[in-house]
């Protein structure tokens, strides 16, 4: 039986790693992967609370989230491929046309 605070701590570390990845990485694929990390941190939270409070709704939400995350990754990778075809780079710093 894993104790709740431990699970939450793990989730926070995982989320922070995701945030760092999203903010600091330049490779678009790695940014997407970091987003997955953050989503999974949320999943861990949901499952942990579900188990602690004996409520299955959290687990059901987690299943939904996994499905949504799969779709999101599919779209995200498609965008990355298109950017690469047009710009021959997947460096996030260089994709900055939407500005003043």
């Amino acid at each position, binding site marked *: 039986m894993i104790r709740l605070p431990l699970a939450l701590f793990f989730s926070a570390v995982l989320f922070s790693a995701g*945030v760092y990845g*999203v*903010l*600091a990485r330049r490779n678009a694929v790695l*940014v997407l992967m970091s987003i997955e990390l953050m989503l999974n941190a949320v999943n861990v939270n949901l499952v942990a609370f579900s188990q602690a409070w004996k409520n299955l709704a959290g687990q059901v939400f987690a299943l939904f989230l996994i499905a949504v995350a799969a779709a999101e990754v599919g779209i995200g990778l498609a965008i990355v491929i298109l950017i690469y075809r047009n710009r021959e780079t997947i460096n*996030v*710093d260089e*994709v*900055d*046309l*939407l*500005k*003043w």
Partner: protein
Amino acid sequence: MVAAAEAVVASPGFAKYAWIIALLPMLSAALTLFFGKRTPGRGWIYGVATVGAGFVLSLLVLWHFVQGGGAYSSSVSWFRVGSLHLELGQYVDGLTAVMLIVVTAVSLCVHVYSIGYMHGDERFTWFYVSLSLFTAAMLNVVVADNLFQLLVGWEVMGFCSYILIGHWWEEHVNSSAAIKAFLTTRTGDIPFLFGVFVLIVASGTTNIHQIGEMLGAGDIARGTASAAALLLFGGTIGKSAQFPLHVWLPDAMQGPTPVSALIHAATMVAAGVYLVGRLFDVFMHADPWVLQFVGIIGGMTALGAGLLGLVQDDIKRVLAYSTISQLAYMVSLMSVGPAGRNAAFFHLFTHAFFKALLFLGSGSVIHAVHSNNMSEMGGLRRPMPVTFWTFLIGSAALAGIPPLAGFWSKDELLVSASNGHQVVFVVLLLTALITAFYTTRMVMLTFFGEFRGHGHPHESPVSMTAPLVALAGATVGVGFLGASFAKAVFFKWVYFEEPEAIHFVPWVAALSVGAALLGVLVGYSVYREARERDPVLAMGPLTTLLVRKYFLDDIYLKGIVFPIRDKVSAFVYWTNQNVLDGAVDGAGWLAKAVSRAVDGFDGSVVDGAVNGVAQTAGFTGGILRYVQSGNVQRYAVLLFTGVVVLAVVFTRF
């Protein structure tokens, strides 16, 4: 049977429709104005048709009074000013009926005559518009039952007279004659207007009949009536060209001859006499000296104008002075009282016909020889027989030869004058003599002797001779209406207080005929042979006096017109330079100053505000644009910072 006859008399009959007669020419004026130029014949048809219809209707109205019918009056409300209620109405009695006949008959003749006389004139249509409008105004004066309506017609007549005298305004002399006529009659109209005011204030109503009743009941003070009568007589002096305002009528002869016949012989100038007759109650209830004053003015004018007629060369001016003189006959007879008034109206009635005839005849002559001057006429009886014979009838009537109309009416005048003041009688008899003389002179110079003009005169077209013949017929016929052996029916129609006719007095008739014949004989013997120099122009100082018209024109010009004109023009110039220009300049300066201030405000405040807002927006935008870098990760940093801040805020507070 008797009851039926009485019922016929009691009903107003056609008298009810007298107002239509006045409205018809108004309709014609409007139709001619709007459609005249597009109508074949350039629009004369409207005037002739409506005035002709009016004449027929007038005869029917008169028929009502021939049967012995009574007066008829009706009115509709017009508008209200304070306590004064103004109405449009008609008052139809025998006098109205007679005047309707005079106006429509002469107007019809003139309308027909003008077709020929004005043929080819540039403003032919406009001429007919003015003629019709004038006729409408005159008829309005005749049927009016209140002073205000009468005044409106009176003023419209003055205006029409002005535009018709100046019909050929391209020549300066014509336009100045029009202005002279307008201003001179206006001088008389102002007292008239005030006379109307006096009556309205004194009686509280404008209705002529009611004013008469109030006078009869003694509700209006004698002094007030005197003032009103004197002021009203001012209008008569102006419109009927009495001394000292007679000077406009001879100059008015500059207008086309049909106009002279209609306005300046038969109708408008007679309106002054009609006014005195219609408002005779006022004169009867005034102090006696008012009527004496009327008599003096009339007597002076009759003799003075008759003498002036002696020396004129212009045929129309002879007739003009004769008109003044004959009108003065009527005016002076008003002073005798009710009988004189009735006689005066009889003379007005006959005079309208024969004077219109004479004017139209002179127009026919002028049309043929292209000159107004008798020194360029002569011997016209052979080429123009119709004109000659009709003119001769008119002249005989004017001179007072029996049995023509002029004789009968002049006889009645002299009979009633013999009952009045001796001086009036003598003056009128003397005037009759002079009238006969200058009439003979006119006929002799125009139609006898050798032709002294240029070209070959010929008889006028039928449209001009037909009215002459019609009027000549009337001149022969209408006199018998007042003759005593024909029961003197005329006086039953126009009677005022005294229904009986004036009786035929043999010695007066003898004197009258004697004076006329003497005048004719002297005239004939003087002008039988052609002379180098006209004898009337060889009377030394008297000729000078007459040719210069008693110096009245000089006195008016040098004493009134020039001083006023010079002073007024100097004053107007000064005012123009200083006051008006000053005001205009000042207004301009003020406008400039204000606009400069507005410009400054616009530039600094309004533009400053707008530009300031724009600059501020640009400045802040310039700073803020660095926030939007396009770099997704920088946005994400801000997003997370925001989330963290919110999380801290929500958890701590």
